[in-house]
């Protein structure tokens, strides 16, 4: 694909996104809740699309396609388990987060832990854990875009230039009008992701495999068998299954729908998007395996598949991958900046004005973007380890989150110690490459974190406000959702 065509496509996409951001800025009010939660007044469709675009990163069209290419439909089980688990958890937790957000005027997911446990340190530890785990994950989005641009342009657009473009777009979309701009551009990008995938499916079905994909796969029956080992399946699936309650960029979105009905639309819209997008990505992986077997690097499967489709279609699909990367990255940047401001700075300076707090948070948006860029530019082997352990590390918030809503005896000391011990244990096992008894670090980490949480909580006193917090949230949920 020519450099000019690619740059023209990116320019068009960026212009449309910027227009949406500009439109969003016209409605921007003042304050933290306005900037980071769009004043909790987001409609059902936009909520569903921003949740989907934030969740589904460039991993889907590059990593999942490559995983399917190399290891068959085990990847479908992995990704479908993630989707179903997310919906299951949303039905239970979305009403509680939404209710707590309204009752206690919460801005970040970590702030809920501070409020519930009556200790700013619980939120601060959670925020630091998220910062450590998510900056590498966001950096990988930049790296993915950089590599893809370099490959598709035949080297005419360098890896670094590609990363600068993605970082610049992420910064503009998130900084300009906060969540109002991110949510609108996410919705726009989610539509691009789905439309491009459907167009590619049409081309594959009618042009690449006119005799049918099933027939072409008859020579590759191995891809339709479950070739994954159970420890591999568990190791990959376990952290992702709890993504909906452990990844702050998606948890924060549970605060934004304007009503109970719109919260439901968000869940159902995400369900539909996730199902279609997952099936399509797996089909692309199978199609690539049938059409071009023997690739040395499975992650190049999508790039190779795009080399066999007409340039305009390849451009649209490429833009959809870039949209997936940017929509994930700008959401992470926005959420991390709010967490650092609310859960770290505010914990250290409790008397800081909301105006100053917001100024610090906004200042952090370019700083985090630049940090991600330099992190990605180093191309360290460590980044791969850190990004792989991101979901596992974030999983260590699970005991504290479950305890916050469902266990009266849970304490701040239990929450803090479980996150610290679990996070260090998972990090150590990933860095050292340890898999005791053949199982992946997240399994051992969550067991350890859970045991520490229970033991320390039982040994310490729960905060005085526990009953009030739990009864207010449960009462709200019962009245508004289930009555």
């Amino acid at each position: 694909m020519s450099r000019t065509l690619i740059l023209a496509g990116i320019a068009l996409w960026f212009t449309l996104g910027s227009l949406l951001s500009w439109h969003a800025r016209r409605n921007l009010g003042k304050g933290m809740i306005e900037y980071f939660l769009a004043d909790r007044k987001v409609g059902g469709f936009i909520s569903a699309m921003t949740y989907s675009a934030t969740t589904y990163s460039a991993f889907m069209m590059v990593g999942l396609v490559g995983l399917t290419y190399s290891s068959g439909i085990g990847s479908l089980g992995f990704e479908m388990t993630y989707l179903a688990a997310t919906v299951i958890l949303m039905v239970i937790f979305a009403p509680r987060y939404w209710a707590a957000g309204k009752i206690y005027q919460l801005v970040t997911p970590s702030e809920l832990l501070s409020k519930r446990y009556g200790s700013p340190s619980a939120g601060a530890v959670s925020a630091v854990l998220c910062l450590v785990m998510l900056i590498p994950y966001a950096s990988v989005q930049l790296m993915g875009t950089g590599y893809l641009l370099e490959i598709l342009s035949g080297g005419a657009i360098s890896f670094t230039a590609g990363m600068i473009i993605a970082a610049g777009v992420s910064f503009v979309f998130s900084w300009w009008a906060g969540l109002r701009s991110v949510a609108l551009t996410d919705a726009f990008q989610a539509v691009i992701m789905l439309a491009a995938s459907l167009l590619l499916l049409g081309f594959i079905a009618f042009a690449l495999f006119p005799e049918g994909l099933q027939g072409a796969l008859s020579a590759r029956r191995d891809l339709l068998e479950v070739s994954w080992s159970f420890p591999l399946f568990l190791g990959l699936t376990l952290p992702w299954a709890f993504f909906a309650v452990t990844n702050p960029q998606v948890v924060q979105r549970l605060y934004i729908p304007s009503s109970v009905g719109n919260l439901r639309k968000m869940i159902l819209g995400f369900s539909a998007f996730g199902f279609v997008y997952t099936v399509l990505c797996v089909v692309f992986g199978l199609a690539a395996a049938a059409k071009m077997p023997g690739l040395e690097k499975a992650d190049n499967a999508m790039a190779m598949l795009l080399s066999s489709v007409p340039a305009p279609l390849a451009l649209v699909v490429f833009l959809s991958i870039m949209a997936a990367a940017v929509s994930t990255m700008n959401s992470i940047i926005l959420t991390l900046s709010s967490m650092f401001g609310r859960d770290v700075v505010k914990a250290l300076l409790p008397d800081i004005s909301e105006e100053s707090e917001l100024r610090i948070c906004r200042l952090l948006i370019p700083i985090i973007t630049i940090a991600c860029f330099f992190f990605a530019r180093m191309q360290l082997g460590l980044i791969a380890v850190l990004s792989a352990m991101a979901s596992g590390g974030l999983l260590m918030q699970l005991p504290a989150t479950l305890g916050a809503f469902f266990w009266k005896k849970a304490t701040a000391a239990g929450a803090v110690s479980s996150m610290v011990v679990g996070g260090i244990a998972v990090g150590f096992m990933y860095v050292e490459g340890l898999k005791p008894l053949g199982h992946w670090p997240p399994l051992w980490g969550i067991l350890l974190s859970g045991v520490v949480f229970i033991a320390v909580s039982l040994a310490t006193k729960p905060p005085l406000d526990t009953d009030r917090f739990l009864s207010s949230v449960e009462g709200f949920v019962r009245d508004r959702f289930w009555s």
Partner: protein
Amino acid sequence: MTRREKLWVLFSLFYGIANVVVPFTILKKAGSFTFWNLITAVVLLAGVWVTSGWAGKADHEGEGR
């Protein structure tokens, strides 16, 4: 937790077991593609049903869409 939520948790446990046991045993050689698609679709449709009471709540609250 309400009764409906408890039923949802119980349903989720059945899903979690079936989602792993069936593909890794009896459908290991063939059929997992269809199975995983179907069982996920069942969970998503169950989600539509279990949250059906949430629909239209905004009207009662007088909140904007």
